[in-house]
């Protein structure tokens, strides 16, 4: 009897299974395993993703005008809380020294005295404004053949830590009073370019606009500001589609180096850093800077009367016009 019952129980179980199978339908059993295909990722094609680095080769090789002195002195401003390190200026200093020039720093005291024997005066990223007396000294210097190079920077944010936490301070290039006397100014916003850059958007490329910069095709600047000069020549302009931070929808080719007579203004100090000056044609720009300074030829006005003349000349052309008549003709010829 138990065997008979067992047979029937088997039938019962089979019946349940058949009913469930009919209800559920065969579809789930019939589904085939989908074939596994490997994922194609054309968007990660290395050639499209990896940016080409800009070559960093070359040496600074100034080739100053034959008329320039074989020796002389370049004074670098250290008296206005200037922010630069030795590494920032070393490639330039090296070029000057190789050309037989001395490099001196002005720290304090009478600026006119410090500039007496100089051919050029270099002002890098000052942290304090020039006072009227110093400005007059510089104008008197440039009015008599001395060369002035001003290097500004956009407003930078300095992060510093203290016991009370991180503090953030803005660093400004306080060139306004000095540069404005030459009809020049430095912008406060940094430039960036998302299409033409050395690695990242803030490392902008600048290209020469005139024939002044022989051998320069492209220079790189690592956080630059736009600069302007009334009636001046633009030496370098940022690559197309450069944007000023804060005005993200306006693109342009902003001047980053301008020259007017014997004054040169740059919107960036980083291109000549010890570890950057070989990138692109930066070394040529450093060489040009050295040449520009070497070609300066300041002649102190004679003590009697001459001083007055020099100052009158400076006053006459007042705010924006040219420091000397001689330079004016040069500028006209250039433009």
């Amino acid at each position, binding site marked *: *009897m138990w065997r*008979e*019952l067992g047979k*029937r*129980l088997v*039938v*019962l*179980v*089979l*019946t*349940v299974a*058949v*009913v*469930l199978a009919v*209800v*559920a*339908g065969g*579809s*789930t059993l019939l*589904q085939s395993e*989908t074939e596994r*295909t490997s*994922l194609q*990722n*054309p*968007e*990660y094609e290395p050639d*499209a*993703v*990896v*940016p080409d*680095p800009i070559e960093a080769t070359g040496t600074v090789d100034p080739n100053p005008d034959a008329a320039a002195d074989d020796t002389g002195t370049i004074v670098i401003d250290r008296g206005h809380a200037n922010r630069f390190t030795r590494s920032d200026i070393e490639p330039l200093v090296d070029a000057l020294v190789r050309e037989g020039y001395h490099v001196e720093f002005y720290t304090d005291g009478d600026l006119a005295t410090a500039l007496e024997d100089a051919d050029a005066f270099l002002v890098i990223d000052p942290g304090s404004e020039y006072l009227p007396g110093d400005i007059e000294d510089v104008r008197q210097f440039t009015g008599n053949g001395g060369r002035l190079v001003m290097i500004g920077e956009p*407003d*930078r*944010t*300095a*992060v510093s*830590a203290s*016991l*009370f*936490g*991180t503090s*953030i301070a803005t*660093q400004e290039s306080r060139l306004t009073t000095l540069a404005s006397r030459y009809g020049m100014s430095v912008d406060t916003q*940094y430039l960036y370019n*998302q*299409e033409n850059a*050395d*690695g*990242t*958007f*803030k*490392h902008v490329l600048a290209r020469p606009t005139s024939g002044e910069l022989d051998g320069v095709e492209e220079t790189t600047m*690592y*956080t630059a500001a736009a600069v302007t000069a009334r009636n001046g020549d633009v030496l370098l302009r940022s690559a197309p589609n450069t944007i000023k*931070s804060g005005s*993200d929808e306006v693109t342009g080719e902003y001047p980053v180096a301008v020259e007017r007579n014997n004054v040169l203004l740059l919107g960036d100090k980083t291109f000549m850093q010890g*570890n*950057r000056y070989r*990138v692109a044609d930066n070394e040529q720009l450093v060489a040009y800077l050295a040449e520009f300074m070497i070609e300066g030829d300041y002649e102190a006005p004679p003590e009697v009367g001459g001083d007055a003349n020099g100052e009158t000349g400076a006053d006459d052309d007042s705010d924006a016009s040219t420091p000397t008549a001689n330079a004016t003709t040069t500028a006209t010829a250039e433009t």
Partner: protein
Amino acid sequence: MASRIGAILRRIARSYVLFVVIGVVVGLALAPVAWNATSSDGTVAIVPVAGTIDGGTSAGVSAMLQRARSDSDVKAVVLLVNSGGGGAAASEELYLQTKRTSQEMPVITSVDAAAASGAYYTIAPSDHIYAKPASTVGSVGVLATTPTALEPTTVVSTTGPNKLTGGDEREFNYILESLGNAFIGAVFEQRGSEIQLSRSELEQARIYSGTQAVQNGLVDSIGGRQAAVEHAADKAGLDSYDVRVMRPDGTARFLSRSNYVASTAPNKTMVSATYLYGEEPSGPVFLMVPATYLNPANDSATAGTPPTAAGRLSPSPSATAASGGTHVA
């Protein structure tokens, strides 16, 4: 009498008909279960992507997506995203997972509080993205702490000049740029026909509200989860469907309070930005998060976070983010 009962019982025991009847009754009793399992055309699986994307999140979501792909019932996936991104590599893993899934079945995304940076990367391959007006999306980009310039000394010797830092700041920016290019390239590969922004505009890494994102094409339309589920079912051709909400294991970690508040994750916790880049970053940590998420101010919302997070010595991404984006030389 007793023998007659015994005879009936024997006959019953011998009868097949009765057992078949019992079988049919039992089968029909179980039928609704079987019916429910198969009467719908398929299942829409909801996969939450909650919290900061790290290896754990990435592994969890990947596992859920793998399950969805291998389950023949699952005909469509809805990604329920509430994240401000996270680690770069983890975000890329999720992107690849979503991409693979979307090649096999419809993937529709519904954005909760945010799908920024790495989370947007994750959802870029979706067939359709829904966001709410208050959702934030975008921030397409990568950030990392630049390695400090170091040189091998008598204290630490190396076999090569770049062993300590991996390369100088300029080279490092090229690395970062290649990560950014991959990200942006992927977004355009997936949504190039929808996005109204130029490559440079997207590269600016702005965040957008849900409605703004609909305008610029980062998102397809305004809608919530229900819309996403219905859209997924519709796209998969399911007239009747089941919805299965998958649950990740573990705890969802949030850097952003708004994501934390919006999250429906069963286990969730707020973490400080140091969770991602550490107290003293020893090397580059590539992050795909909006820098505002790394703001030290967020840390105050975190229980048990050391207050020194804001007083870190190195210029951390958080400090630079707070300053408005500029960086010191």
